[in-house]
């Protein structure tokens, strides 16, 4: 009998957990949709920037900008790690942190000075536990990072890079490819590798633009803008990927809870039936003994 009561208790617990995971799945789904919409809207800006860059490329001018220059010797490097503020999202945080740790070790071996900046409580906790010194931490970039906030970071990095205080900026985040494919990457944002992201509009055979004030000055202004847009995209990608990861994790958890509830129910029914059978056997046995 005690066994049966225990089973009922566990069954209730599993059902309650299922309710929670199911709700979290639904919340993550709606947040994912919002984050996705934002990312799509932001893509328009990036697309236009690369269009102008491609147009500038046709204007026959030399692409030179301090943000594009690769340093001969890298002495001081910045790693920005984008993790989530909350857990329960499968391997999302773990895979970023694993990559980051490997990167940090690589830098230590080459004895390059590292300035580590982490966004998200999960990453901060993990790296503190690993006793990796963190130079700056942010917990304010939640599901909806605002451009103004990211811009502040971007401007600081760009200034530091141009002033020679840093030689390289890497960002560890989860890249969003499609809604069924995201993976953790470490990307070098500074120096900027390729402008325009490889988008070349070949169809039009060169529009003759009038540049105000001049093509060179437009370039000088658009390179930082492209960099900031790219950094912002990293944040957006990370937030979309986080919601997807949480959605998938919670869906798995709900399914597991369903399965568990099913098997517990079965066990309970068996125990109940066994109880009835043995009770019946006792009555019949008793009656037979009396008779």
């Amino acid at each position: 009998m005690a066994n049966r009561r225990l089973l009922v208790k566990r069954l209730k617990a599993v059902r309650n957990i299922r309710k929670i995971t199911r709700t979290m799945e639904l919340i993550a789904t709606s947040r994912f949709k919002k984050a996705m919409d934002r990312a799509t809207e932001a893509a328009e800006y990036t697309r236009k920037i690369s269009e102008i860059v491609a147009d500038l490329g046709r204007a026959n001018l030399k692409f030179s900008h301090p943000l594009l220059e690769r340093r001969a010797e890298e002495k001081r490097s910045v790693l920005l790690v984008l993790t989530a503020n909350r857990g329960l999202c499968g391997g999302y945080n773990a895979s970023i942190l694993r990559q980051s740790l490997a990167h940090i070790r690589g830098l230590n071996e080459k004895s390059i000075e590292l300035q580590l900046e982490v966004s998200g409580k999960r990453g901060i906790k993990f790296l503190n536990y690993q006793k990796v010194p963190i130079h700056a931490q942010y917990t304010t970039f939640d599901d909806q990072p605002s451009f103004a906030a990211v811009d502040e970071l971007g401007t600081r990095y760009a200034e530091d890079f141009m002033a020679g205080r840093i030689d390289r900026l890497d960002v560890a985040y989860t890249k969003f490819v499609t809604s069924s494919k995201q993976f953790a990457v470490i990307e070098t944002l500074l120096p900027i590798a390729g402008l325009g992201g490889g988008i070349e509009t070949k169809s039009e055979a060169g529009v003759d633009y009038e540049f105000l004030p001049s093509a060179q000055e437009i370039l000088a202004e658009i390179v930082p803008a492209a960099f900031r847009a790219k950094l912002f995209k990293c944040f957006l990608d990370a937030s979309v990927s986080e919601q997807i990861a949480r959605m998938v994790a919670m869906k798995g958890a709900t399914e597991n809870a369903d399965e568990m509830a099913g098997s517990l129910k079965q066990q309970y029914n068996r125990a109940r039936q066994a109880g009835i059978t043995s009770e019946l056997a006792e009555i019949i046995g008793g009656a037979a003994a009396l008779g």
Partner: protein
Amino acid sequence: MAELSLVLVTPERTLFDRQVASIRVPLFDGSAGFYPGRAPLVGRLGIGELRLTEVSGTVESYFIDGGFVQVKGTVVSVLTNAAMLSSEISRKSAGAKLQEAKAELAKTDIEYVASSRRLEKARKMLALASKD
């Protein structure tokens, strides 16, 4: 008559994407106006008011914060860091921002550039503010 449409995008979202009759944007050194049939152009924007006249004749005004303008064919694309309807700027908050910018003390050249930019932004914003 040739057509003209305006696409106003910020890194966060597309604010405006419609046909218009004419547009006026703040370039880095003054205003520039576009009518249908403008020759292709890429220009650097300043801080200030973007004014557009809809096909129906109503005038709308946005505050924009730097960026670029590209005219290509019948499309004018305005890429800016931040944009908002002038009617949504409140005089109070713009005034507060101006006070804040004025109170700043710049110690280095870079800081000076940044703070004078903030000051200019706050001034232009206040000039456009129509609400209390």
